């Protein structure tokens, strides 16, 4: 019951769930990036677990590394965009940004 893979699997599912929920209910752009980060943590934990279960943990690790790099770049660009949006429009509220007309 309390094998490590079972625990990791539960954590993966819960992290994905928390991440998706956070993305869906957040109105702040930076908070949405936080939700994305949580969901991606679940994804690369799942990749490592899949590698372990398939007896190819090194392949799992190398793919997880690619995901970490891509996720970091996404976070960097998203945060830079959020900073620019805040400077230009004065808010990070998704709802306020949606109602803007230019």
């Amino acid at each position, binding site marked *: 019951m*309390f094998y490590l893979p079972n625990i990791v699997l539960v954590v993966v599912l819960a992290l994905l769930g928390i991440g998706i929920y956070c993305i869906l209910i957040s109105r702040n752009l930076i908070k949405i990036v936080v939700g994305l980060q949580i969901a991606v943590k679940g994804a690369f934990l799942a990749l490592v677990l899949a590698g372990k279960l398939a007896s190819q943990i090194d392949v799992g690790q190398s793919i997880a590394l690619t995901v970490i790099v891509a996720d970091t770049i996404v976070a960097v660009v998203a945060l830079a965009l959020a900073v620019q949006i805040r400077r230009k429009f004065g808010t990070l509220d998704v709802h306020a940004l949606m109602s803007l007309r230019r």
Partner: protein
Amino acid sequence: MVDLFIGAGILFCAYKAMQENRLLVSALWLALTSALVSWMMYRVGAAEVAVVELSVGAGLVTVLFVFAINIAGDESLTRQSLVPRPLAWFAVVFSMGLLVWMIMPALQSERMRAVLEQTGVLAGLFRSVLWNDRRVDTLMQVVLFFAGALAVLGLIGEPNKSREERE
């Protein structure tokens, strides 16, 4: 038992990162989640990625968050979300159900049971996989890093340029 505590810690920190209204505190909970995830990856046997996650996920990304929040300001939004909460819950439960439905048959197989009972850590071939089999991917990651750094410089540096031009 330790794994159970790590797992519970990850979920608690992720929940707090989601629930917290102050962005800076939320970023710190996210950093703690990253640190615990890297510990769990080490327990699984992925030591190399655990180190990368600890340095990049808990270190670099946290610094970026603090930097961005410092510039953009901690705008706490407690108003109602755009997506109705019942709909968000339904989306989460549906996607989790779909994942469990896809994963469970794979875990039932005899081969997986044998692997689950195996306790030894496999010999490290990470270096060979990364540098020989996935050389192009690794080079692409380096390119991605530079592209990200240039994107940030371009995005954050733009207002300063225009200010200089005005002067």
